[in-house]
């Protein structure tokens, strides 16, 4: 009996997705489809970097300083083994980009997830509880909002690095980055979730749940949360682009990923030192990939915002 229901529901889920307005507006927008395709290719390439990359840039044994600073192979002066040339340590730029975008995307996703969980929780609690709890949470948010996010990230990064004394930088860099970027982006989630929660809280379905004595925590989790997730999804998508950029900025400034595990930002920084001596390829390729990735994710975010906004449909 219950399995009967379940197969029905599984079927109807697929049907619901294919029948939904979101899927329809996705199919209608060529730009969005291209952006989604590009983002998907970059994500897959990053995920499958060990399989796709011709070299392993982390394998120190395979590196040779003899091969350093080789230009792309098609320029005629390069080495056919290195399609996009090599950097100052003789690492293949193409392989490093693939591995680097992996790190960039991982930092982006993890910090967005961290910021979202933190922001959603605080926003829900502030909106549903109201009163003093609300006042405290939102004042903290206001204060934080008056500083640029990058400054907050720098501050937190600096504080953590200072506390740990800078040792084990290679092992902690990832976590430190995720925490500092996450902490600098939670406010937007909290504010959005709070304002949606204020609306949902007074709706009659929430009152019906209160009436049977359901614990406030369960009401927030089961009733309010699913109904405030729409805008969160939009923010998360746009913030993913922002988080990737922030990571790149921090790495460019030298407080992000170390050169032994270069992210796209780290590579741009390394290449920056050689830009004026003519070795343009070290910066250009990671820079271009970063720009394309961020643009694609941003376009997806814009589309999602419009698709979820009933007024624009």
């Amino acid at each position: 009996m219950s399995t009967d229901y379940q197969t029905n529901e599984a079927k109807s889920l697929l049907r619901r997705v294919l029948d939904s307005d979101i899927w329809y507006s996705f199919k209608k927008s060529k730009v969005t489809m291209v952006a989604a395709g590009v983002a998907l290719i970059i994500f897959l390439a990053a995920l499958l970097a060990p399989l796709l990359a011709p070299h392993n840039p982390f394998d120190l044994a395979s590196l040779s300083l003899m091969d350093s600073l080789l230009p792309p192979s098609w320029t005629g002066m390069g080495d056919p083994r290195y399609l996009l040339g090599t950097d100052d340590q003789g690492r293949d730029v193409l392989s490093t980009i693939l591995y680097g975008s992996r790190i960039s995307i991982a930092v982006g996703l993890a910090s967005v997830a961290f910021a979202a969980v933190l922001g959603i929780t605080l926003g829900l609690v502030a909106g549903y509880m109201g009163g003093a709890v609300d006042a405290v949470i939102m004042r903290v948010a206001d204060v934080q909002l008056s500083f640029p996010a990058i400054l907050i990230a720098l501050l937190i990064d600096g504080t953590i690095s200072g506390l740990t004394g800078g040792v084990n930088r290679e092992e902690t860099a990832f976590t430190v980055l995720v925490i500092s970027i996450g902490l600098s982006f939670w406010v937007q989630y909290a504010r959005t979730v709070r304002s949606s929660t204020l609306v949902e809280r007074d709706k009659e379905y929430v009152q019906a749940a209160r009436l049977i004595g359901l614990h406030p925590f369960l009401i927030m989790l089961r009733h309010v949360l699913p109904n405030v997730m729409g805008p969160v999804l939009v923010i998360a998508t746009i913030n993913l682009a922002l988080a990737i950029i922030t990571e790149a900025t921090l790495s460019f400034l030298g407080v992000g990923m170390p050169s032994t595990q270069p992210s796209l930002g780290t590579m741009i920084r390394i290449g920056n030192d050689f830009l004026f001596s003519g070795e343009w390829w070290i910066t250009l390729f990671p820079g271009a990939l970063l720009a394309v990735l961020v643009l694609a994710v941003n376009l997806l975010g814009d589309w999602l915002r419009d698709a979820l906004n009933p007024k624009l449909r």
Partner: protein
Amino acid sequence: MSDNLLEIKDLSRIFDISKPWLNRLIEREDRRLLRAVNDVSLNIKRGETFALVGESGSGKSTIAKVIVGLLAASSGEIRFDGVNLAEQSPTAMRNIRRRYQMIFQDPFASLNPRWRVRDIIAEPLRKFGMGDMEGSSQKRVDELLELVGLSAKDGSKFPHEFSGGQRQRIAIARVLSSKPEFIVCDEPTSALDVSVQAQILNLMRDLQDDFGLTYLFISHDLSVVRHMANRIGVLYLGRLVEVSDSKEMFRNPRHPYTQMLLEAVPDLDMTGRTRVKAAGEIPNPITPPSGCTFHPRCPLADAHCKANIPPVVESDLGAVACFKAT
């Protein structure tokens, strides 16, 4: 005495609508209070339908919310089946809470849009531990759906797939799932079309007969109230101005406000009866008039009415709060 299921004594609810503390300090303003419900006392007998009638600002919805515990009372006492709700322990409240329920006005807001109908109806079952085994709660939900005139297979749909009337049926099924004795109905049909309103009102009466339910029926529509209620209480600006038997009230309304409300009901039979037209509008409840709050609109009011609040006088015919009532 024991045939009263619900007893309300001197119930008041005051809302603090003042500006934040800092604004008050700077702008030198006093606290502003809104007395939404003012010393209301009433009893609801087991098995009857008691209707509360009033226009906007009368406090009828506030009373409903205070009774079911969605709002706290500022003062006064609510006894459900003889026990004072304010004095119960959380464990005792859990058992009592199962016995009363509420039907809301807007069926488009009262069902969680992300939940399947089956889960919406089963939620009280789960909460009160009435359908522990997966199969038994499933069966109960199917029964409830059929009871309110839907089919068991509707359970796997989402609320947006239903019309307003069908959603109100789902809301009624949810309310019935915990087998309550007392149901507060807050304007249950005012968001529905007339042809659907009749279906829902009939359904509610059938359910009352089948399960011996007691209703507190809140409405602004006198024709609907006349059709549903055994007894009627009329509210004006948070005060109960008249309580009487339904038939008696329509035959012989005693408070001038009740008379005005009756006159304002459109004449669908087109009898062409001449009517005394209603005058004025409900004052702002933040700054209610002195004395009897109805005096600015009352054709009978005199100086005495402006200065003094009329007490509720009980008699065989019911209760009325008016100096001029005969």
